[in-house]
């Protein structure tokens, strides 16, 4: 009797151990794998790689409307054949997907004469309703903190993403569009943006000055990609 009950107990133990199969995630580290893209990659890598891996081949050229906005007094101008124009405080232009554009930021408050030359890497486009593309441009906001950090010699990377409507965080918008979320230095902004939605553009602000030598200008301007000016209707 005792032997039979022991046998039963043993069988029950075996069955329970089989039924409790290990979860595969137990063997995996918490953050497994290495992401293909990282936010600190050279400008243009992510956009061109995504273009090359796109299922739409060849990729249709598309001028994505982008609106630049910054603190009061700051003017933006995009390069045309290596030279910058006067600049507008509320610049809107159509930028091609997959290209990197160098633009100039001038009129920085409390830093007279200082100019910054950030880049914007166009990774993906938005799909607004037909005819309303210029009504819903990608907003590119430069905070004063970003500008100050860049003037101190730091590299500021801002990843602009389109929120997933299912998981969007209910955050109040600022006066110039969505507010920026700061991430710590040891976190990858691109990874967080990809978690929250779809990355459309990457803004990198540094303190590099344009080169004086002509031969270096093409590299500085990433090959002078073309862009389409968008004129605002006169009120």
């Amino acid at each position, binding site marked *: 009797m005792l032997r039979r009950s022991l046998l039963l107990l043993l069988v029950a133990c075996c069955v329970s151990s089989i039924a409790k*199969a290990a979860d595969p995630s137990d063997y995996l580290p918490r953050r497994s794998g290495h992401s293909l893209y990282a936010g*600190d990659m050279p400008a*243009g890598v992510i956009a061109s790689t995504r273009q090359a891996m796109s299922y739409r081949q060849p990729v249709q050229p598309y001028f994505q409307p982008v609106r630049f906005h910054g603190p009061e007094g700051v003017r933006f101008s995009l390069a045309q054949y290596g030279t910058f124009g006067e600049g507008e405080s509320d610049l809107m232009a159509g930028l091609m997907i997959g290209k990197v554009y160098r633009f100039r930021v001038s009129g920085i408050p409390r830093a007279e004469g200082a100019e910054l030359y950030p880049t914007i890497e166009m990774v993906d486009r938005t799909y607004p309703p037909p005819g309303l593309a210029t009504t819903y441009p990608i907003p590119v906001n430069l905070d004063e903190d970003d500008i100050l950090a860049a003037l101190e010699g730091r*590299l500021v990377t801002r990843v602009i993403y389109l929120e997933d409507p299912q998981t969007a965080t209910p955050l109040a918008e600022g006066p110039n569009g969505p507010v920026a979320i700061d991430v710590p230095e*040891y976190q990858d902004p691109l990874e967080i943006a990809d978690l929250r939605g779809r990355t459309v553009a990457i803004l*990198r*602000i540094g303190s590099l000055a344009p*080169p004086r030598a002509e031969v270096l200008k093409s590299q500085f301007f990433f*090959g002078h990609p073309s862009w389409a000016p968008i004129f605002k209707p006169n009120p």
Partner: protein
Amino acid sequence: MTGEKMKRIVTHLALTATMAMIATGCVPVRHNMPPEQRMMQPGPGVGGPGPGVLGPPAYNPMMGAAAADTSTSGLAANESETADGKMSISDLATGDSNPEISLVGYDQVEAQTAGFRQLLKGGAGADCGCGGHGDSAGCGSGGQVIPPGGGVMMTSGMPGMISTAQVTFGSPDGMHVRYDISGSGMFDSEPLVVPARQNFPQGGLYRLKLTNIPSRPGVELYPTVELAYANPRTGAYLAHNSVPLQFSEEDFDQVLTGNFVTKVIYLPDPEFQGPAIAGIDTLVSTRLDPGIDPIVEADRRGSILAIIRLGDKDIEMAGGGMAGIAGAGMMGAPIAGLPAPFAPAMTDGCGSPAGPGAGKVGAPPSLPGMVAGVNAPQYGMPYTGTPIGLPGPPHIPLGAPAGLKSHTIRNHTHMHMPRPVEDLRIDVRQQPGMSYPNPVSRIRVTEQNIHPGVPNASPGYEHPSQRVY
């Protein structure tokens, strides 16, 4: 009798074991592999030097099209032919272009600096410079080739683009900085008054001259700045930011008391980047514990951008042999108006002149071409070459006219070069294996409302219309 039998048995056993080992091939084989540095070359003996080979000659002044006008010796004449395009680098590398003096590998300025020169010439050549994220992309093929500058040309894909790093001289204010433009030790640039910026081609070693140092009248210092090539980690930084070079009072104090200061500017990896410290960091040799190499430490913590070496040596002192020679011992000015390096950078990085010449500039860097007894044989000594890179026999008697017409060298080196592998089988087993929970095969849904819901969510359902009498 018994002992003799035992001895015989043991002998037989030993013989049998030896025969079995020979028959089964179980003889322990000791492989004598070449050193690791030579194993990284494309083939056995292709890039590596043999014993007794002459050291690499100094870097040719004004490399590129101007290489022809400095050639006087046979070696230099050979180089000029190459520069004129009569022979290709691959011809040289195989060693059959010149049967008398075979310049294979180590002796070749051409092969060593091919990448840099091709970059200067603006043609897509044998060396791609930096392939960035993929070697398969090839040279100048557009697409996703990341030039060493970090900027990415996506469609235009300009071959021969020079990648530069912008350097900001931040402190002390008012100091004058000069650099070489036309020759090593010339310091013929317009003086930069600190704070100032200047673009330097990446992957070069630059000599600077610091004058007008505040609070140190009359002191002139000659530091060198080594700029590393950009890599995928530093590319974004170098495309948007400048590398700040700063000299502090402490540095000058250390140098003027006879110490040697090494400053390494690096971009820390994320794990070494605290939330408070952003951007780049600098390691100074005088502030580290003794025995800690700042370059090794910086390389461990992140990616090196620049290395400054500061001592009190006077480069322009008469008799120093370093100054005043236009174009001497330089890598050549790639672009007019840009600083000219006098040697390639020794730091690793894509785009570096990969090969035996990288980081092994043995001869003094500013010697004008061939100097007997320094980077060429002593006057009167033989200069017969051999196809395997060994120096040939002398013309005996010494001092008499050269009379040797032929010599024979026999190679008795034991060689075992195995055949290349044709089929490779890889067995993969992951442990622990995969074990997934059983998929769902049956679902039961029971919905129970404790409180009956509002029908159609119509308000006031509990007050239905009532009959009016």
